[in-house]
């Protein structure tokens, strides 16, 4: 069975990992190829901070919660290994603070040790914010995880091809199943108008003393932008830019300024922290949320239907959703392989 995964970002690579894990020994031989226009360090995932943090919704469907649990469980399983840090995975406690109090999130029992911030923490660490949560999450740094995943996949015989895919149909002569993890590219590839890009800009700075992440929500009158900071392995990622309708791919000094003002208002210790890198990327947003479903494309040039599994639209939480979604994708691929298994003749 020839399977291709389109997209070499966190969603595509985790899909490939889980497909190899769950499907390679089942129902006959599996040949997997990852095709992507861009791989690390040129893709969206490269610049991401990698914090495990779902949207702060009070209600989520069972399917969504299952995906989140799947992601968290996978990261927990890697944590106990000796190579966790090579894969860019580590435990990271931290805070999410809100301008307006909101109900506890649907995922509060999936993370570990969820609590509200104490009055001292709120008043002194986050002045102006009305409410906060604290929990222990994971960081899964894509810029470490993706090369690690590529190595593992290559060892298992997966091929990597760097090229742009212009249509799903063009893959029909070469593959039985296509897993579409094209992120922002799904606008064209899947003709999906619900997909849009949210521009983000971040800096990586030296602040080795920072031991917790901070994510802010809502407009604080005394703070510029909506700042956030995540410890990474060697630096701290600081940001606060979420722009729709802006396709500027280079760093904008005005955004740099906004980020600094927000971060310094949030934590004055950051003053003078050395900037090591600045980066711009586009979060793959989708109205209506993640599209994770099977689609059978008929009318292909070969006459045979092409099985597609869509897995895109993860917004700003690619890392958070990736493993749980990947497990679900692998289940679908397994089902398709079982359906396609040649039946023995009498």
């Amino acid at each position, binding site marked *: 069975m020839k399977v291709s995964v389109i997209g070499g970002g966190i969603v595509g690579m985790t899909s490939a990992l889980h497909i190899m894990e769950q499907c390679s020994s089942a129902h006959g031989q599996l040949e997997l190829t990852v095709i992507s226009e861009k791989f690390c360090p040129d893709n969206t995932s490269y610049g991401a901070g990698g914090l495990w943090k779902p949207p702060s919704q009070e209600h989520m469907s069972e399917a969504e919660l299952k995906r989140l649990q799947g992601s968290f469980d996978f990261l927990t399983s890697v*944590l106990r290994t000796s190579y*966790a840090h090579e894969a860019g*995975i*580590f435990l990271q*406690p931290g805070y999410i603070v809100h301008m307006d109090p909101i109900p506890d999130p649907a995922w509060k029992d999936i993370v570990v040790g969820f*609590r509200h*911030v104490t009055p001292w*923490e709120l008043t002194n660490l986050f002045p102006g914010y009305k409410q906060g949560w604290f929990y222990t999450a994971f960081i899964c740094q894509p810029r470490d995880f993706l090369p690690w995943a590529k190595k593992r996949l290559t060892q298992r015989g997966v091929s990597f091809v760097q090229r742009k895919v212009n249509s799903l149909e063009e893959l029909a002569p070469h593959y039985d199943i296509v897993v579409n993890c094209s992120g922002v590219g799904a606008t064209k590839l899947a003709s999906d108008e619900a997909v849009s890009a949210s521009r983000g800009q971040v800096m990586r700075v030296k602040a080795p003393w920072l031991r917790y992440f901070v994510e802010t929500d809502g407009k604080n009158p005394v703070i510029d932008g909506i700042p956030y900071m995540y410890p990474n392995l060697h630096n701290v990622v600081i940001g606060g830019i979420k722009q729709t309708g802006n396709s500027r791919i280079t760093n904008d000094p005005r955004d740099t300024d906004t980020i600094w003002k927000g971060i310094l208002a949030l934590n004055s210790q950051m003053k003078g922290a050395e900037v090591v890198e600045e980066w711009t990327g586009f979060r793959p947003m989708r109205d209506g949320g993640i599209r994770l479903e099977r689609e059978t494309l008929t009318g292909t040039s070969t006459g045979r239907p092409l099985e597609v599994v869509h897995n895109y639209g993860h917004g700003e939480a690619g890392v958070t959703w990736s493993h749980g979604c990947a497990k679900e994708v692998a289940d679908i691929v397994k089902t398709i392989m079982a359906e396609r298994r040649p039946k023995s003749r009498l």
Partner: protein
Amino acid sequence: MVRRVCVVGAGVVGLSSAVCIQEKVPGVQVTVLSEKFSPHTTSDGAAGFWEPHILNDTPQELIRRWGDETWDHLKTLYLSPVACDAGVILLSGYHLHKQPQQDPDWASTVFGFRHLTKQDLQQFPGFSSGWFSTHLLCEGRKYLPWLMTKFKKAGGKVQQGKVTSLTELADRYNVVVNCCGIGAGELVGDSTVQPVRGQVYRVHAPWIKCFFDAEYDGHDFYIFPCSNNVVLGGTAQKGNWNLSPHPTDSKAIWEGCCQLVPSLRKCKVDHEWVGLRPSRPKVRLERESVGKGSSSLEVVHNYGHGGAGITLHWGCAQQAARLVQEALSLQQLKPKL
């Protein structure tokens, strides 16, 4: 008339006492006199984690008072622009046990103290209970130079040298503050001062963002991420004066910590270090008049903080400053002949 105060010892207890005396006692010239200075003191090697530890029979109300005052001081430093320079970090992490333990007295001081759930414990096979809390850590290696700068800016003087008896200082100083830590035993003939030997690794493992502290079967294995490296420990060997790392201890610490966090096996070791915690049945923080006639001297003792030097230092320094004030007032009433 300027009164002269000499603080003997330049570890965290000595330097903080010197600074508090400058701040609280008017009209004094303070000198810090020590055989060793940062980075060669016991305080320099300590991780600086705030938690009362190895304090033997020191009364609980004193531990609470001094500990909470120090906690408040560290909180203030943390919120100020000097946090980074002073080496103060806010961090969270795990205390792990093999049997349920009573909640510690400091549970209400730290932030967000809670018991570990089954979910937490899944990550730590072999441990059946524990706590999670958010603490402050104050690294000796950064804090001591920061205190010293503060001390000198306020006009403090520094002298390097070894003191063999306190009365030799009687002709130059009105009050002497004895902050000699492990050296206090020899200096004042206090045989109750005993070392509690601590050995640690300092490693590069930047993926460690929480602390871990596992106590079981007489062991205490801990992992503290300081600002530039991670401390792996430890030992607590009473009466052991050996300042060199011992291979048996190194192996035990390594295995104990790697069992807690397996990814540590791949970390890079920077160096090993041994410190002698200055342990005493109780912290000695009191006034004493020593010597007679022209070699009479008012002494304030501030030593024997065991494994809690950084945890208690500011509360003790404040009390030491009050005792210095008392000693000076007494002296005014009975001038030297």
